[in-house]
């Protein structure tokens, strides 16, 4: 108690939200005890949010966060605009970290296994037991994941002092990339890629928009690179790989290569680029691979490679990859080839930086883990401590981890919630969630980000920071690490940082770092060029071997929602987020090319058995034209058995199909290594997909415009500009009023119905640039978090009852896996269009939906009687209905959405929690608008353009969304909607006058009929 209060005193936090009156949401009827503040905490004003900075702990990227708290509870996380990695954005996984904080399946306190049961134990006893057992163990392992710099340091100190060994294992660690960097440039780092600086990007299967390195930062860089700029220039992106991931779907061109032949394509490109003088020690290798030689092996015509290489040579270009999905037995060689390609094209120091890398933390590949497993199996290990990782899930079954771990006499898990590893541990010492804990990360040398507790630990769970536990254990073991708490340890390290940053006052440096969320210590070294080194290992660039029979290669790739899914699967927001590629929720699916599916006689939803020499799983088929005919793909992240109520039983664990094998050169776990046998089982599993049709069916939903046509007279704007129109709006809808159909013109003069205001009122509008949108779906989760959008459960999604306010539509235009060529997949975040002429409004019998004076189509939940007439009449189908009460503590029926305590702590108090039987939809984040309006009214000021930021725009890594008042012709949204690419969906057809303008995607290839 006093501990927490003291802590608060340290946090002289920034009240980023400022003053303003939040609208208190209608509470549920579950108010049990009302206690007024006798002495109000200084920094808490009821109804006003307090913001804290911290850093996301979901992956290695280290996005800076702003954490919104209300009355002491965390209700939302957002990107920290001042942080160099996130720059205000955040991915779906980052948003969903709240559901880990309030995870109802977290351990309520330390637990000791007695027999089969876990029994509560006190922290003192537990720590005493650890100290005692470690002292007797005679050597132990501390298995950990990506946990931040200082904690990693403390762990090393602890292990060093107590005779243990730290093994870091991250299933998505880029071991081959680091090894290739070491071989080629002598630097064991993950280089820093500057996508923004490139004009020609080639990815050899690196899924940088989803799971590779730093998706938020790279998503932004990619959007800036590939989005058309004011001069009409647009960067080109080519995807080289066997399967189109989300990243691949964003490409302009696709080279569907034979599995495992990235190295050959990269070397052939280097050959064309002019490998001679630049290739240094690799001169001979580059000379040996010309496009004609590799064409037949890679399955790509020499001309395609040659053309690609010539454009690549024009620069500034950048080659990336291969990523985890392409981690085959030749992965390091492929990375070496890509590094050579970058080097010969002169990209090193321009778009790739080895001197100022992205990551320089120790490698977390599979090889050290393999050794640890061997040691455990040998019986030499007296104890194993597991922290920040879930190896029992995240390693292939064939690794034997479970058996080896089971044989260890004393197994301690620091998991905060149950997972597969904790399920077999003897002692559980639940760690705090990162939003309750101290820590730090470094996303790049010189850039340090602090993590601070943003709320008092969730009271349902008696947790303790692992750093504190380790220090306490060390003390009991008679080791003095110099500090008593992890906080002191952290302060100590930051005092050193302050010194190296040249700060006079370490405390001031610390406070400022907490306030801003990021500290620059020294300057980031500017990437000076690095020369190629003679390889110190034998590298074979030939296509790797694949185990097993047949011609189907199994690709196991990290899920764009979960990554490896080891620790984040128990989150309904992620489970129910439609996968950006397949649009499937909850369960696993097997991706099969249409021709292959026909040959196998399977349809969507037919369950097939996948069997490899290492195991077999069963999952339903999803037919996908974006995969080669000889490849079958399966995502990681499913098939949990002990990860909590929302994770268990969904899908299959793809790792069950893989051998336990480290790539020879780098020690990374191989993922693309085996052939697979596909057998239909005859069973069916209806896909829980939100996709209706994958084709636009010749409708102007997401038209595109060819780059060549951009700026041409009259091209591309036939939709937004349809001359004067007459609208039956005057005198109650009987007299025509002339309009030019611009969004700011609506509602028209004389329109009587709804509370239409005068011209002094703003008209809120949005513009979404589809040339930038990557379909990453971060906005979907951000919206869900902001607006208390319920989840509904797999069965309901299958029935078509998903409730996301943003439906990220995905249409195939050109997806051809048989040969190299253009690829064109269109994304469209479909939200309520806030039509000026809204079809939903006149049909509601009770005025539950109506127009506000500032042009917002609002839904009055309390007035809605649930006729669903508005949804029928909505041409955009953006209205979602509460078919059940999805927000009760218990599910109304088995498998339905519900919000068990304490998940309901996450609810945004500014937004009503809806009940059974009412309609809802995107509100343009009206509570945010009102908050700013109220503040402006109180302060007597006006609202500046860009001041109001809806949750989707706030979260968008691609900066594709702009919101504002379209009546103000200088506003960004007004400018965007005047762009020649601007159009409004279906507007020409049905005259709905949407407030949302979309900016057409720009393609390099010709598009049909100038429209789509």
């Amino acid at each position, binding site marked *: 108690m006093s501990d927490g209060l003291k802590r608060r005193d340290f946090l002289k936090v920034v009240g980023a939200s400022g003053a303003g009156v939040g609208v208190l949401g209608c509470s549920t009827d579950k108010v049990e005890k009302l206690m007024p503040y006798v002495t109000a905490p200084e920094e808490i004003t009821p109804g006003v949010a307090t913001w804290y900075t911290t850093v996301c702990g979901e992956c290695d990227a280290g996005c800076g966060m702003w954490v919104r708290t209300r009355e002491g509870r965390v209700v939302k996380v957002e990107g920290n605009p001042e942080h160099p990695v996130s720059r205000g954005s955040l991915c779906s996984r980052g948003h969903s970290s709240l559901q880990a904080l309030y995870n109802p399946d977290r351990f309520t306190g330390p637990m000791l296994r007695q027999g089969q049961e876990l029994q509560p134990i006190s922290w003192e006893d537990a720590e005493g037991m650890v100290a005692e057992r470690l002292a007797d163990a005679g050597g132990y392992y501390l298995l950990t994941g990506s946990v931040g710099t200082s904690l990693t340091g403390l762990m090393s100190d602890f292990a060093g002092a107590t005779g243990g060994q730290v093994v870091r294992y991250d299933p998505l660690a880029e071991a081959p990339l680091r090894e290739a960097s070491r071989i080629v440039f002598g630097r064991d780092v993950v280089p820093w890629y500057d996508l923004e600086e490139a004009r020609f990007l080639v990815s050899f299967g690196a899924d940088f928009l989803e799971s590779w390195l730093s998706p938020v930062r790279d998503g932004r860089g990619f959007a800036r690179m590939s989005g058309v700029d004011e001069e009409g220039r647009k960067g080109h992106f080519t995807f080289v790989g066997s399967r189109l991931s989300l990243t691949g779907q964003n490409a302009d061109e696709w080279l569907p290569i034979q599995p495992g032949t990235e190295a050959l394509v990269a070397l052939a490109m280097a050959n064309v680029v002019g490998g001679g003088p630049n290739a240094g020690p690799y001169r001979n290798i580059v000379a040996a691979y010309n496009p004609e030689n590799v064409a037949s092996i890679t399955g790509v015509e020499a001309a395609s490679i040659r053309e690609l290489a010539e454009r690549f040579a024009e620069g500034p270009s950048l080659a990336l990859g291969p990523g985890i999905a392409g981690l085959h037995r030749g992965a390091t060689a492929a990375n070496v080839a890509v590094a050579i390609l970058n080097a010969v094209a002169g990209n090193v120091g321009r778009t790739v930086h080895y001197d100022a890398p992205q990551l320089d933390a120790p490698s977390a590949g599979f090889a050290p883990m393999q050794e640890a497993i061997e040691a455990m199996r040998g019986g030499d290990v007296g104890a194993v401590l597991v922290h920040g990782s879930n190896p029992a899930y995240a390693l292939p079954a064939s690794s034997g981890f479970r058996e080896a771990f089971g044989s260890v006499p004393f197994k301690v898990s620091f998991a905060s919630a149950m997972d597969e590893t904790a399920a077999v541990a003897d002692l559980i010492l639940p760690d705090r969630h990162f939003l309750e804990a101290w820590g730090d990360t470094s996303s790049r040398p010189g850039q340090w980000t602090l993590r601070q507790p943003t709320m008092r630990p969730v009271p349902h769970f008696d947790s303790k920071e692992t750093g504190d536990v380790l220090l306490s254990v060390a003390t009991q073991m008679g080791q003095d690490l110099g500090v008593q708490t992890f906080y002191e340890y952290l302060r100590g390290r930051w005092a050193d940082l302050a010194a190296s940053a040249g700060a006079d006052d370490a405390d001031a440096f610390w406070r400022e770092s907490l306030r801003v969320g990021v500290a620059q210590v020294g300057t980031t070294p500017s990437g000076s060029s690095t020369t190629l080194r003679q390889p110190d290992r034998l590298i074979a660039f030939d296509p790797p071997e694949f185990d097993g029979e047949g011609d189907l290669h199994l690709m196991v790739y990290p899920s764009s929602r979960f990554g490896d899914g080891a620790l984040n699967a128990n989150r309904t927001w992620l489970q129910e987020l439609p996968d950006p590629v397949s649009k499937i929720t909850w369960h696993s699916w097997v991706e099969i090319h249409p021709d292959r599916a026909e040959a196998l006689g399977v349809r969507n939803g037919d369950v097939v058995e996948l069997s490899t020499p290492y195991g077999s799983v069963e999952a339903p088929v999803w037919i996908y034209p974006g995969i080669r005919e000889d490849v079958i793909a399966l995502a990681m992240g499913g098939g949990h058995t002990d990860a909590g109520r929302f994770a268990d039983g969904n899908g299959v664990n793809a790792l069950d199909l893989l051998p336990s094998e480290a790539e020879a050169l780098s020690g990374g776990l191989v993922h693309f290594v085996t052939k697979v046998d596909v057998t239909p089982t005859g069973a069916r599993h209806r896909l829980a997909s939100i*996709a*209706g*049709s994958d*084709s*636009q*069916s*010749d*409708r102007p*939903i997401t038209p595109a415009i060819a780059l060549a046509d951009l700026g041409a007279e009259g091209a591309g704007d036939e939709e937004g500009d349809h001359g004067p129109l007459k609208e039956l709006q005057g005198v109650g809808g009987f007299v025509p009023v002339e309009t030019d159909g611009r969004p700011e013109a609506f509602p028209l003069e004389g329109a009587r*119905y709804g509370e239409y205001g005068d011209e002094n009122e703003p008209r809120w509008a949005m513009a979404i640039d589809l040339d930038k949108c990557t379909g990453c779906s971060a906005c979907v989760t951000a919206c869900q978090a902001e607006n208390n959008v319920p989840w509904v459960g797999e069965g*309901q999604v299958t*029935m*078509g*009852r*998903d409730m996301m306010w943003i*439906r990220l*539509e*995905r*249409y195939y235009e050109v997806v051809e896996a048989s040969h190299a060529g253009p690829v064109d997949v269109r994304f*469209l975040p*479909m939200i309520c269009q806030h039509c000026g002429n809204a*079809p939903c409004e*006149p*049909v*509601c*019998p*009770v*005025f539950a939906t109506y127009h506000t004076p500032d042009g917002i189509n609002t839904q009055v939940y309390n*007035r*809605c*009687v*649930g*006729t*669903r*007439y508005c*949804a*029928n*009449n909505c*041409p*955009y*189908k953006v*209205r*979602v*209905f*509460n*078919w*059940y*009460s999805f927000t009760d503590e218990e599910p*109304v*029926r088995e498998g*339905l959405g519900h919000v068990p305590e304490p998940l309901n702590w996450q609810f945004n108090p500014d937004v009503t929690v809806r009940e*059974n*039987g*009412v*309609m809802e939809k995107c509100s343009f984040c009206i509570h945010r608008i009102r908050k700013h309006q109220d503040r402006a009214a109180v302060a007597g000021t006006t609202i500046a353009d860009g001041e109001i930021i809806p949750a989707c725009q706030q979260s968008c890594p691609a900066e594709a969304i702009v919101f504002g008042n379209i009546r103000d012709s200088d506003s960004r949204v007004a400018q965007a909607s005047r762009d020649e690419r601007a159009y409004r969906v*279906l507007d020409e*057809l*049905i005259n709905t006058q949407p407030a949302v303008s979309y900016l057409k995607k720009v393609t390099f290839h010709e598009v049909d009929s100038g429209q789509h």
Partner: protein
Amino acid sequence: MNPTTEVLRGAVPHPDIQSLEEVNRAVLRPLGRPGRGWWALLALSIAGIGLLAVSWGVQLWFGIGVTGLNSPVGWGAYITTFVFWVGIAHSGTLISAILFLFRAPWRQSIYRAAEAMTVFAVMTAGLFPLIHMGRVWHGYWLMPYPNSRFLWPNFRSPLVWDVFAVTTYFTVSAVFFYLGTIPDLAAARDAATGLRKKFYKVISLGWRGTDREWHHFGKAYIFLAALATPLVLSVHSVVSWDFAVTIVPGWHATIFAPYFVAGAIFSGVAMVITLTVPLRKAFGLEALLTNKHYDAMAKLCLMTSLIVFYAYLSEFFMAWYSGEEVERAAFWERLFGHYWWATWIMLVCNGMVPVMLWFKRVRHSIPALFTISIFVNIGMWFERYVIIVTSLHHEYEPFAWGLYRPSIVEMGIVVGSFAWFGFWFLLFTRLLPPVAIAELKEVLPTRMRPAGAGGPGGDQ
């Protein structure tokens, strides 16, 4: 009286009826002690109402999610069945009011049953807007009532029009039905004894059959008939506007009002056939309900079938002719898409099977007519299903297309609605004279009556 006059008056001969007393006996016979069959049917219908109640209860308890509805198909079996019953409700008033005004005397044998059917069908239809509502407990918000929040219903919404149209139609048809029954209730009173007599005494409002009463009755009847006539056209027009005023492809069509009215009469007449055939058999009313009556109803069926089929073809043609991609796709989907079977059931049952009615032999065969009427009933239910479900499932946004399948709860409620309707109809057959005695007597062959005696009346 010469035969020509008789033909001009359109009177329907009842060759088996020998006297006016026989009419009374024949019509009032069913009001006696019911047989086992009736009790069995009543028990069945009560069980069906139980099913309705349980299904609705389940839906209220859990939420409207127990249906198969979803996004994009927000309306399904409930609204289908609502429109179906509203349609059924049409022929009663048509037969009793419009045909009365047009002096079509063949109506006299059937109009009582048809009117009863109308009232009960509206009572059944009225359940569905409530059932389909997400928050039925707030359903009264659709009514304009003064309240402190100054909140009124949205008079632009066709659902509000529906509220007025259906309640008005129910009120007028119930009053019309009751008024027309009064003289016959008096006849029943005169024939009954004991408790039943008291019951009829009260509800016959002391009818004595005086000239003055007949005079007023005739006036009132003709006024109400005139009042009800526009409602026949308006109610289903309004119901059709639920669809026609939207922008849903497949709904948004100007043909909807006449198309729906014709369809309603079509289904209503078919339902009258479906109901009176067993009634006639069970109560031995063959003498009153003759081939001549069924022939006339069959012709009405045939005519409306042709109109409806024309409307179908016109919709398909207009979809093609408009050149509008979305509209074309919706109708293509209707014929050959996921719900092709429903569309073809509709086309075959409503457009093709009734073609047989061109043949007099078919029109004069009661079993054939009964069978055809069943086809039409099924076809007309599916017509609404096709309009509602196939249009909604394939709208503007391809990514939002989806499928719908009725759930067991919806089926329970739909089946239960037939039981609810049957329950009232069964009660009607035992409590009210199923054929209009007084009017029937009017058209009996003149040879039974003194020359020159015309107009309603006679002994009670």
